[in-house]
């Protein structure tokens, strides 16, 4: 055998950074090692969006942390509001009013829908299907209009779901408006299905296959794990708020490729619409926050620790909080779903793929650098 064989092979390889100054990944980079058009190895390069929330939270009171928890993930602030609020509620042993629980679920599911729409939009953009991108972001604005009416801000609700309930009641005609918007989202979904075969199928089917065994081994959660075939959802397995009273399905797919992740996305939006309609129909009257509580109330967190986990739109989002008898938490640990999706799972999927499939694989995991770096 030629003794120089290995050196020549090495010379053919070259490296290509995917991000961080790229419209696709956004504040996140993957260092690719390529041989022609084939990816030989991929190394994730996180840390561009580290803001140190865990430390910042140790210097603030729970109501201030509620505002801060918006920023953990930019695409789904209300879901992270709920994770934080639940952690404080459980630590304080509070009974949240029933109406507040219903409002929380409605808002969280709306947030999940708009996050999934972003997922569809960015996925379309990544595979060169601009119509899908524009359609998705256009329809997302209808949900942002609702948030603007309810919380007072389009993207950031500023701790709308706060410890002890929610900060404001829904407006007078809000249930009707929400139902109208959901009809529009239904229209959007049927449009997505119409466009399905044309561009998306060719680019996503059979690309980035994640077998179930590997998915569990690498720590995938949420839609990514469900696309690989495991029927799991924290809303069913470990119900919080009012999810145990609601009737909804957990969509699963078998293959685990990019296309089945897209299918999961669309079916989950339909399930969320079902959940919101049920919650709106059964919403009781009453207080939306514990009556003795307002923004200025002085709270001392009791000594103890708590671990709360929720089904965020990207997977399992969790918070570990330790109280030490003062008004500020002693320790807050945030578990974001994107960390495991973006480092072990992404590196595994990219190895051996074609360079043209890199964006399709990357965006099919619904990544959020914000909640990964925290």
């Amino acid at each position, binding site marked *: 055998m030629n003794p120089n064989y290995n050196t020549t092979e090495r010379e053919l390889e070259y490296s290509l950074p995917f991000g961080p100054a790229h419209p696709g990944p956004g504040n996140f980079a993957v260092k690719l090692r390529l041989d022609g058009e084939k990816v030989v190895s991929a190394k994730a390069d996180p840390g561009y969006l580290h803001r140190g929330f865990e430390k910042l939270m140790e210097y*603030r009171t729970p*109501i*201030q942390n509620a*505002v*801060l928890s918006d920023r953990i993930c930019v695409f789904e602030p209300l879901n992270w509001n709920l994770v934080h609020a639940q952690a404080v509620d459980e630590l304080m042993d509070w009974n949240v009013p029933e109406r507040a629980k219903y409002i929380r679920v409605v808002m969280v599911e709306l947030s999940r829908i708009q996050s999934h729409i972003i997922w569809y939009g960015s996925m379309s953009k990544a595979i060169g299907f601009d119509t899908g991108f524009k359609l998705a972001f*256009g329809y997302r*604005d209808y949900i942002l209009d609702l948030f*603007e*009416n309810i919380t*007072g*801000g389009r993207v*950031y609700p*500023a*701790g709308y779901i706060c410890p002890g309930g929610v*900060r*404001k009641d829904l*407006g007078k005609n809000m249930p009707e408006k929400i139902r109208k918007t959901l009809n529009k989202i239904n229209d959007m979904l049927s*449009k997505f299905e*119409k*466009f399905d*075969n*044309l561009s998306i*199928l*060719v680019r996503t*089917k059979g690309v980035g296959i994640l077998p179930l065994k590997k998915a569990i081994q690498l720590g995938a959660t949420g839609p990514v794990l469900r696309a690989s075939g495991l029927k799991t959802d924290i809303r069913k397995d470990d119900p919080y708020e009012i999810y145990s009273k609601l009737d909804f399905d957990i969509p699963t797919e078998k293959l685990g490729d990019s296309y089945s992740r897209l299918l999961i996305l669309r079916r989950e939006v339909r399930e969320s619409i079902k959940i919101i309609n049920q919650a709106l129909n059964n919403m009781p009257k009453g207080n939306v926050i514990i009556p003795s509580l*307002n*923004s*200025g109330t002085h709270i001392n967190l009791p000594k103890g620790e708590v671990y709360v986990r929720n089904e965020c739109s990207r997977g399992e989002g969790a918070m570990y909080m330790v109280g030490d008898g003062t008004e500020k938490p002693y320790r807050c640990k945030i578990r974001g779903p994107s960390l495991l999706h973006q480092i072990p799972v992404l590196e595994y999927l990219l190895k051996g793929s074609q360079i043209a499939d890199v964006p399709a694989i990357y965006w099919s995991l619904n990544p959020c650098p914000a909640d990964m770096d925290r």
Partner: protein
Amino acid sequence: MIINNVKGSKKMSSQILKTIVELLKNLFQKPMTVKFPHESIPIPGGYRGEHGFDIDKCRSCGLCANICPNKAIKMVKAPEEYGEKYPRLYPQIDLGKCCFCGLCQDVCPTKAIKLTKNVFLSTFDSKEVIKNPVPKK
């Protein structure tokens, strides 16, 4: 893959037809966006925009400065020309640090601070973002 076989090409042509129908439908619809500097979408009540401050209602309790998560509110003396009429400390709001959470509005016992609908706050002058406690004109 799909385009290569006959069945696929039939599928493709039906897809193109569907797309043309969709295009014709959208041809007579209004655009989803507005041309921003000339017109903007209506802003609903309860929006968290610029602070409106009523100095006559203020009790100088300092709760707003305490609760502000970003420390954007500082209790300062009123400007000299109003010093005689308003001798106490009043909130000075730095809009550059503010995250518009509205906690100061919630916590104010006399409703002296109220967030308004004004969201057009971009400026070229960095001094303009600091709102001094002055009476309304």
